[in-house]
């Protein structure tokens, strides 16, 4: 009787152990699949030609697989989105954490979580019908689908992540710091920006890195507004990102072209892992600080 009960407990323990290790298994699965399917094309094309080749002509009679345009577009696009999104997100977070009264805070917070839950295709759709024609008119271009349109859409999409993580960091700043600054004669606004913000800097850095991760990984909203031609990045030209390069050709690809798309995904994955590591570093640091 007792043995039987013991056995059941051991089996159940085992089941839970397997469930617990499932996430680790998934990460391994994703990594292994991407590496195995991404390496062959890089081998065949050559790492240097693949990463730094300036022409992508995957369906030409003499195909060429250089992803430098995609790499640079992803980097510029992300940088642009961060440049636009961070100031707005940062000041909003400071306002919500320190200035806003509870009622305003709860209204603005629910607006932000709504912004976070709008599907990316809806961002893409609105971008397609407002931003793209808008940019065409304002800058008198033949077509408004451009890097600029993608940057603006991405900037809006990263806002909620930046605000939420910065907000958490700012709220964790010990009240004593601020009280000391106020007692020394600093006004509230000076205290927020010269005491609270520096005290929360690791958390704010984490927020920015999270925004970078979101921006570089976004595919659907970008594919709808960026025009999708494999040009070298330029603000007013049609461009293709790492993510959209995969999305736009996957459906009809075959042979080396298909393998090259997996290689692009591998490059993207490498970037994401790097960003994750930096993010973890800042989050850990931020936790240790308070």
């Amino acid at each position, binding site marked *: 009787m007792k043995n039987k009960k013991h056995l059941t*407990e051991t089996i*159940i*323990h085992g*089941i*839970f*152990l397997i*469930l617990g*290790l*499932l*996430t*680790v298994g*998934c990460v391994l699965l*994703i990594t292994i*699949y*991407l590496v195995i*399917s991404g390496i062959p094309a890089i081998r065949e094309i050559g790492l240097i030609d693949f990463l730094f080749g300036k022409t992508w002509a995957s369906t030409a009679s003499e195909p060429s697989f250089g992803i430098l345009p995609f790499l640079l577009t992803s980097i510029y696009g992300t940088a642009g989105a961060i440049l636009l999104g961070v100031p*707005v997100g940062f*000041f909003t977070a*400071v*306002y*919500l954490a320190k*200035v*806003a009264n509870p009622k305003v805070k709860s209204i*603005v917070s*629910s*607006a932000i*979580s709504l*912004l976070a*839950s*709008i*599907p*990316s*295709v*809806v961002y*893409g*759709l*609105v971008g*397609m*019908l*407002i931003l793209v024609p808008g940019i065409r008119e304002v800058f008198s271009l033949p077509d408004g689908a451009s890097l600029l349109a993608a940057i603006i859409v991405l900037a*809006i999409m990263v*806002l909620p992540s930046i605000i939420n993580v910065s907000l958490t960091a700012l709220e964790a700043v010990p009240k004593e710091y601020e009280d000391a600054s106020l007692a020394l004669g600093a*006004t509230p*606004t000076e205290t927020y920006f010269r005491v609270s913000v520096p005290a929360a800097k690791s958390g704010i850095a984490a927020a920015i890195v999270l925004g970078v*991760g979101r921006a*570089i*990984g976004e*595919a*659907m909203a970008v594919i*709808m507004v960026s025009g999708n031609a494999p040009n070298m990045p330029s603000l007013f030209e049609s461009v293709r990102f790492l*993510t959209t390069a*995969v*999305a736009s050709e*996957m*459906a009809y690809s075959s042979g080396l072209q298909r393998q090259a798309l*997996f290689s692009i*995904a591998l490059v993207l994955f490498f970037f*994401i*892992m790097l960003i*994750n590591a930096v993010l973890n570093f800042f989050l850990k640091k931020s936790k240790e600080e308070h």
Partner: protein
Amino acid sequence: MENRPISNERKRYIFLMNALMTLAVVITCALTLFFIVYVLYKGFPHITWELLSTEPSYLADTIGILPDILNTLYILLASLVLVLPLGVGAAVYLSEYATNQKVVSLIEYAAETLSGIPSIIYGLVGMLFFCEFLGMKTSLLAGACTLVIMNLPTIMRTTQESLKTVPQSYREGAFGLGAGKWRVIRTVVLPSCIDGIITGCILSIGRILGESAALLFTAGFAHATNGIIDGLQNAGATLTVALYVYAKEQGEFDVAFAIAAILMVLAVLINTAATLVGKHYQKRRDI
């Protein structure tokens, strides 16, 4: 005591910072408001009973989104049924069984990594593993399995948060009465963390409804009306994928906006539900 006036330089700094904060908040709120109003304004007039209750017909040249609505429901149901036991189980292991700190940090690190991976990569790996390696072909089931991996960290995290708040004395009381570990988990621990599980579900529903990149290559684009069993085995577009196809490939913006308006209303409902659940359980906990 002498009351020293604030210097002009400081005044300018304070004014500038206050102005920037106000501007930022106004921009954030205006953007949200604009999105809601614009999408609802453009979408609502095109939501008709005919659109909701028919499938697309090339003969009559009409578009209906009934298959897409059903596909979304099937994929939602299948993903939740699969992810719930897995995610809750993982959380239970972490908080009730795991003793080795290294294993715990490994699992938590893996979960964080999973939540940082972009959906297009999930889509690719899902296509390679579920559709090709496991032979599911392009089907709703393959899409649901991909979404299970994506949502695993969410369910795990919310359940874990809630397990942390279950008082140790509950467990000790049950152990003291002679219950085995499994029985304590089943009858005491799990019922007390139901709020975390519900929150996780709501968040996952939101994420599944909005997902498109991961489903493009795993669940496909088809618009056929099926029952749930046939539906899961066949390819099918969810609402988001249908929106993408109608807007980008076919230029049917009216239909796209109608779908966008439906998705927007659902997003508002899900957010409200999440807030209400949070408040409800917060109150119960405070008592």
